[in-house]
């Protein structure tokens, strides 16, 4: 268990601190598939390169389990399978339903939680890969964060001190998210050049 100065981090925070990317795998795979059809192995390589840094790579079990569920649900389809080859020779393509699911996930701001930078990072990268308006998504997230911060500000003013300190805890963490959002928004062009294939 990660401990610093007697302060115990929550599991979610521990994973962030440890550098493990907390990625919603199904929508992330949809986002990677959208620009062009791809094989399972290629998807894994791209996923690990973009989102696995410092953490554990996507396992083949997670990869093929997720692809199979996405196919079952009609979000992807097999496109150009080569009979007799292993599962990694299947070529997958995103369907209209898959695009709709991806679009809904990208445009929906995440619940402001003190440790969600990793999910925002994934959304930004996928938006850039598919030429979607990443700056708009960040702006919506900014608005969702400020709404929550306004609630917490009201909570800290109402007191008592124990509640005030709890609200402060949330406010300082959300403020860190906001700084990350600002600095990322300012560097989107640079990031696009780095990651777009």
């Amino acid at each position, binding site marked *: 268990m990660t401990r610093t100065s007697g302060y115990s981090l929550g599991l979610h925070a521990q994973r962030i601190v440890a550098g493990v990317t907390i990625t919603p795998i199904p929508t992330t795979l949809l986002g990677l598939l959208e620009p062009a059809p791809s094989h399972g192995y290629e998807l894994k390589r791209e996923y690990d390169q973009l989102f696995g840094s410092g953490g554990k790579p996507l396992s083949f079990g997670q990869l093929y389990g997720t692809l199979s569920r996405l196919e079952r649900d009609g979000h992807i389809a097999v496109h150009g399978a080569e009979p007799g080859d292993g599962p990694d020779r299947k070529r997958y393509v995103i369907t209209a339903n898959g695009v709709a699911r991806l679009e809904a996930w990208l445009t929906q*701001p995440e619940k402001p939680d003190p440790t969600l930078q990793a999910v925002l990072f994934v959304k930004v990268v996928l938006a850039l890969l598919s030429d979607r*308006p990443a*700056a*708009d998504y960040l*702006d*919506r997230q*900014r*608005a*969702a*964060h*400020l709404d929550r*911060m*306004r609630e*917490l*500000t009201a909570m800290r*003013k109402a007191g008592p001190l124990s509640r005030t300190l709890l609200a402060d805890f949330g*406010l*300082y963490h*959300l*403020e860190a998210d*906001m*700084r990350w959002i*600002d600095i990322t928004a*300012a560097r989107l062009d640079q990031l696009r050049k780095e990651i777009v294939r």
Partner: protein
Amino acid sequence: MTPILAAHEVTKSFGATPALRGATIDIAPGEIVAVLGPSGSGKSTLLHCMAGIFPPDSGTITFDGTRLDQLTDAARTKLRRTLFGFVFQFGQLVPELTAIDNIALPLLLDGVARRSAYARAGAWFPRLELDGLERRRTGELSGGQAQRVAVGRALVTTPKVLFADEPTGSLDSLTGEKVMDLMVGMARAEGSAMVLVTHEARVAAHADREVMVRDGLVTPLGVGV
């Protein structure tokens, strides 16, 4: 509701550099609006134009039905002294004067009798939790105390609009929170609207709503860039 202060399609350049490129914003009476944006986005220029400190190159600034951009310098100065209040990051107090002199100053400049001006100024010290510091020179006050004196000086005339530009920019977190709590609480008690320019989300969260200045334009948050 009719806005107390409105900027419509305001442009302002400094030399060849455009700072505002058609900024539009309405402030309702008593409303607290945070203006967010990165450095150089034009947010401070917007505040200065709305407050009648800079005349815009084009566009209109309307305060309570009066076109601010059409007033003479003298009329704008008088309006700023009586109906607007200002809190800046620093450098706004007169260091040779005491705390109470600084708070009384806008009233004295406005022709209020000395005794009355000092009585009104003195009444702000307990509200600002500055009891006993009336006779201190402002150079002898801590940053947080000085900023609270600045809040008192800005609000002593019961302004219709308070303009605050990075009011906690030079303060530590705890002191900054105290200044924000007092400033917002007092502004609400006085019924003053507030234009709060900040780059800090935690400060902006004290407002009723936030707008973003990007490349000299004002956009609401959350509707896309």
